[in-house]
C-alpha cells in the first residue's frame, strides 16, 4: 500500500518536473517573441519593407537588407543543398563503412560546432583573398554555404538512415543496380527529411552575422547589389548596426526592433516552409 503510494508520488514528481521544463522553455520563447513583436510591430509598414534607409539610417525602410539577405541565402542554398545531399548520399550509401568514414563523419559533426566567426575569417582568406572574389555577396554566400554544409550533410544522412534497409535489399533482389535502388526506392522516401533539414540549416544561415561581417556585408549602400561581385546589406548585420553602432542609438531603436521582427518572421517562415514541404511530400506518398 505504502509502496504503491510512493511510486505514484514519484511518478507525479517526475512528470511535474518534465512539464515544468517544457513550460519554462515555451514561456521564455513566447516572452521573447512577444517583446520583439510589441516593440517592433509598430515600425512595420509597407514603406518600411519596401524602401531604402534615409537620413543616415534614421528614417526609411530596410528593403536593401531584406533583398540582400534573400540573395545571400540563395547563393548559400546553391552551394550547400546539392553538395550536402550528394555528400550525404555518398557517405551513407556508397562509402565503405569503416574507420575512415567514422572519422569523416566525426569531422563533419565537429565542423557544425565551429563558431561562425571562424567561418567568417576562413571565408575572408579563401574567397576574398585567395580566390579574389573580393568582399562581395558571392564571398559571403559561399562562406555561409560552407558553414551550412555540415548541417545539410548531417540532416540528409539522418534522413537516409530512416529509410529501412529492406527497401534497398528488396530492390537489389529484383535486379536493380545500386543506383536504381537508391534513386527509385531510397531517395523518394528520404527527400522530405533531407529538405526539411536543409531548409532549417538555410534558415540558420540567413540569420548569421559573423560569417558575412568581413566577407561582403555593408554598413550602408545607396544601391542594391547589381552583380555577385557587389557588396550587400543584410538583415542580421543591419540589426547589429542599428542596435550597437549607430550614432543616434536611442532614436533608431524602433527600426532595430522592426528589423529584428522581420528577420524572425523570415526565419520562422523558412522553418514553416520546411514543415509544410515535409508534410506535403509525406502525404503524397500515402
Amino acid at each position, binding site marked *: 500500500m505504502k509502496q504503491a503510494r510512493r511510486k505514484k508520488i514519484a511518478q507525479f514528481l517526475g512528470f511535474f518536473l518534465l512539464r515544468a521544463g517544457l513550460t519554462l522553455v515555451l514561456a521564455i520563447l513566447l516572452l521573447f517573441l512577444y517583446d520583439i513583436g510589441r516593440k517592433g510591430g509598430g515600425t512595420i509598414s509597407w514603406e518600411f519593407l519596401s524602401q531604402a534607409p534615409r537620413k543616415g539610417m534614421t528614417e526609411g525602410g530596410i528593403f536593401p537588407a531584406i533583398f540582400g539577405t534573400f540573395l545571400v541565402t540563395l547563393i548559400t542554398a546553391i552551394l550547400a543543398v546539392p553538395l550536402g545531399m550528394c555528400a550525404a548520399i555518398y557517405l551513407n550509401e556508397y562509402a565503405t563503412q569503416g574507420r575512415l568514414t567514422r572519422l569523416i563523419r566525426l569531422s563533419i559533426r565537429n565542423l557544425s560546432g565551429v563558431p561562425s566567426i571562424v567561418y567568417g575569417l576562413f571565408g575572408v582568406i579563401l574567397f576574398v583573398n585567395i580566390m579574389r572574389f573580393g568582399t562581395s555577396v558571392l564571398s559571403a554566400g559561399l562562406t555561409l554555404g560552407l558553414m551550412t554544409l555540415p548541417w545539410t550533410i548531417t540532416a540528409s544522412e539522418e534522413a537516409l538512415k530512416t529509410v529501412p534497409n*529492406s*527497401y534497398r535489399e*528488396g*530492390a537489389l*533482389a529484383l*535486379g536493380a543496380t545500386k543506383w536504381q535502388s537508391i534513386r*527509385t526506392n531510397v531517395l523518394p522516401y528520404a527527400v522530405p527529411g533531407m529538405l526539411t533539414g536543409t531548409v532549417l540549416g538555410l534558415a540558420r544561415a540567413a540569420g548569421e552575422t559573423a560569417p558575412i561581417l568581413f566577407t561582403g556585408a555593408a554598413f550602408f549602400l545607396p544601391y542594391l547589389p547589381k552583380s555577385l561581385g557587389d557588396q550587400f546589406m543584410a538583415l542580421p548585420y543591419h540589426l547589429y548596426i542599428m542596435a550597437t553602432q549607430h550614432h543616434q542609438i536611442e532614436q533608431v531603436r524602433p527600426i532595430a526592433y522592426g528589423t529584428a521582427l522581420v528577420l524572425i518572421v523570415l526565419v520562422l517562415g523558412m522553418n514553416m516552409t520546411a514543415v509544410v514541404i515535409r508534410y506535403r511530400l509525406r502525404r503524397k*506518398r*500515402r
Partner: protein
Amino acid sequence: MNVETGIAKIETRDLDFYYGPTRALKRVNVSCYKNRVTAIIGPSGCGKSTFIRTLNRMNDVIPGTRVEGTILLDGKDVHAPDVDVVELRRRVGMVFQKPNPFPKSIFDNIAYGLRINGMKDKRKLEEVVVRSLRGAALWEEVKDRLDENAFALSGGQQQRLCIARALAVEPEVILFDEPCSAIDPIATAKVEDLIETLEKSYTVVIVTHNMQQAARVSDYTAFMMLGELVEFDVTEKIFTNPVNKLTEEYITGRFG
C-alpha cells in the same frame, strides 16, 4: 552423400563464407535441383540464411564479408568476372523473412522489377502484374484495389505480394528466407500451398526453422549446424531415416 540425381540448377562446392574473421559457412556442398523444392533447416545461427543469401550474392552488400569456394548456376560460376550480379539477381529472386513491400501502390510494387529493367509498355505491365498476382494467389483479394498502398495489406498478403513481385521479373530460381516466420498460421498455409505450386515452374530454395514446414513443402532437405552441412538428402529420408545422429536429434526435437 547418396542422393538421387536430377538436373542441378544450383550447386555449391566447398562454399566458405566469412563475416570478417568469423567463418559462417564451412565447406558447404549442396545441390538444388531444377523444379524441386530444397529446404535448408538447422538451429538459429547455423548459417542457413547466410547460405541462401550467397546464392544470389545478396551478401555482397554487407561490408567486410568474403566468399570462398564455388557456386554454380546452370554450371556457371556466379562469381565469374563476366557475371553481372544485377542479372544474376534477376534470375535468382528472393523473398525475405519479413514482408518488405515498398511504400507504393500494389500495382507499382509488382511493376517495380519490370520498370527498373526498362519496361514502359502500360498494357504489358498490366498483363504481368495480373499474372504475377494470380501466380502468388493474391489476385482475388486485391483485384479491386491495385492502386492502394501495399502497406494496407495484412502481413500474409504482404508476403504474397513480395512473392508476386519476385515472380514478375520471371526468375528461374526463387529463394525464400524464412518466409513464414513473421506471419500467422493461416497465411503460412497459403504461402506453403503457393510454394508447392511454384515448384512446377521454378527451382525453389527455402530456409526455415519450422521442421514440419520443411517436411511438408520440400523434396530435398539440407540440415546445417554451426556453419556446416550435416546431412543432405531426399526430404523423406531425412525425416524418417537420417544417417547422422545429429540430424536425428534435431528433427526429433532434442535440441534447437
